[in-house]
């Protein structure tokens, strides 16, 4: 993966993808899950791996079956999560928690194909929970977006959560 573009991508691509990222955040903040699902490619790969805190010099081999995941979703599993949230039985979301996502550090770093871009961004998620507490989660994301006609679709997202111990009682939220 190319980390820095050799030449900057066209401004209109940057604007379009940045708009897509902001739109996505707004749809999720508004719990418009169907609108969000419509922004995903049918082959979406949506991942957040588990991490551990290790010494820089540690040379332990990788774990046998891998680190495990917080999210490893295809479209079917994302729909399943949305179905649960829409079931009317998720008491932890009723009344709704107040969630706001801020997206920044948008950086288009590569153009693997004419209609595809790889994009870094940073997400700050502010959650004012039912219990009155406020938790702020931050994450870095590396996405692959594909232009399909007028629309941009999310094809892949790798999310790095910046918390080794999750400071919240659930992750009923998408990043």
């Amino acid at each position, binding site marked *: 993966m190319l980390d820095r573009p050799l030449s900057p991508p066209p401004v209109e691509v940057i604007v379009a993808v940045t708009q897509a990222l902001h739109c996505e955040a707004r749809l999720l903040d508004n719990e418009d899950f169907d609108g969000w699902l419509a922004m995903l490619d049918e082959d979406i790969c949506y991942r957040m791996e*588990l991490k551990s805190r290790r010494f820089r010099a540690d040379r332990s081999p990788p774990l046998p*079956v891998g680190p*495990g995941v917080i999210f490893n979703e295809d479209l079917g599993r994302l729909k399943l999560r949305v179905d649960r949230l829409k079931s009317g039985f998720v008491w*932890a979301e009723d009344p709704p928690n107040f969630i706001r996502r801020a997206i920044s550090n948008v950086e288009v770093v590569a153009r693997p194909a004419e209609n595809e871009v790889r994009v870094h961004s940073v997400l700050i998620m502010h959650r004012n929970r039912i219990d009155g507490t406020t938790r702020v989660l931050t994450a870095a994301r590396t996405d692959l977006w594909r232009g399909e006609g007028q629309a941009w679709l999310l094809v892949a997202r790798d999310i790095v959560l910046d918390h080794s111990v999750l400071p*919240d009682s659930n992750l009923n939220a998408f990043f």
Partner: protein
Amino acid sequence: MALDIASLVDTGTGRQSRLIYANEEIYRQELERIFGRCWLFLVHTSQIPKPGDYFRTFMGEDDVIVIRQKDGSIKAFLNSCTHRGNRVCRADRGNARAFTCNYHGWSFAPDGALAGVPLENEAYFGELDRSKFGLVPVTKVSEYKGLVFGCWDANSPSLEDYLGDAKFFLDVWLDAMPGGSALLGETQKMVLGTNWKLPVENVCGDGYHLGWAHAGAMSAVQSMDLTGLSVGNSGVDLDGGLSVAGMNGHMVLSALDGVSGYAFYPDPKPILEYLEANRQTVIDRLGEVRGKQVWGAQVNITIFPNLQLLPGLNWFRVYHPKGPGQIEQWTWAMAENDMPEAVKTQILENQCLTFGLAGLFDNDDGDNLAACTEQSRGWRTAQMDVYTNMALGRSGKREGFPGDIAAGLVSEHNQRYFYRRWQEHMMAENWAEVPTYNINSLTAQEAEHA
């Protein structure tokens, strides 16, 4: 003021005072009499396979490093420099030849010995007796079939005696297949604003909350029947499962169908194939009852005080207390070594989907437990009681199983035994005053032929 522990729990009526979830003094006594006395889970041997491999964990609030030694044995030490007390290891896990304190550079070997002291001759004038300043070892460390436990109390029973008849059920994971067991993946850690007893109680016996608290998750992923437990708790079949307690404070919930552990896998087929391909092996090793009915079924095992494992759903968890109103919940996926790689991968994935940090089920429980804790902190609520009084007095012996057993996964029988054990420990000055009981114990022969 001495704590009147006898008044806080009434096993006969299933009553608990809410003080036990909020009171600081009670919590300090728990650290001494429960976490300072009981065998506590440290690590699975699969997590530290090679010499120098270490894993950092907690015993109560005490930070501990567990280290595989050159001779293959396992030792555990307080993660605290003997000079000024600083933490000597800041990583979660890894492999190390030594642990060096950040503060002044004292360095400790994997066997705990003080191996290096900067300026030892120049500033200590060669007068420091290094042999007196090794890391403080955990008093007893012992293994049961891959599970490594530590204990601070020299007078505790042996680990095998402590586990008692819970071994009958532990073996359904640890010893079902000849290859034994393993934990998978990194540690899934989250902070929950709950007293540590509430999640233990939730999993040790509370099948009642499943159909209600988890109705959304069940409606999304349930792929087969679980003893008639239904979304919204509209029905239940009490013949399909057992609530087993009376085993030194350890508890088990078990369905009896040999497959329903995988009821919450969207696609259980590969695992059901593994179960059926190996069913006879397990029957040969553990007998008919465990091989046919329990292995593969939904099983919740609780080892007092803070270890829980659910073969089937395949999550394995400890709760580390962080004050009366907070815990860190640590979870791993469980597997059998004989499982094909693809099945292990599926288990890790499904465990993360259902009971991970974004787990569909786990994400229902946290707020309920936190609110139960908060509603014990008020001036008025702290004077109140809570109840686990479902199906009082409806338990007894069941052919082929140890323990005092109530019918069904929906009962509060196990929770009563959990609080009874809590009270027994809290009232006892020392291990000699803690009763030992394995009700309706099977003889070795009965267990084998069950």
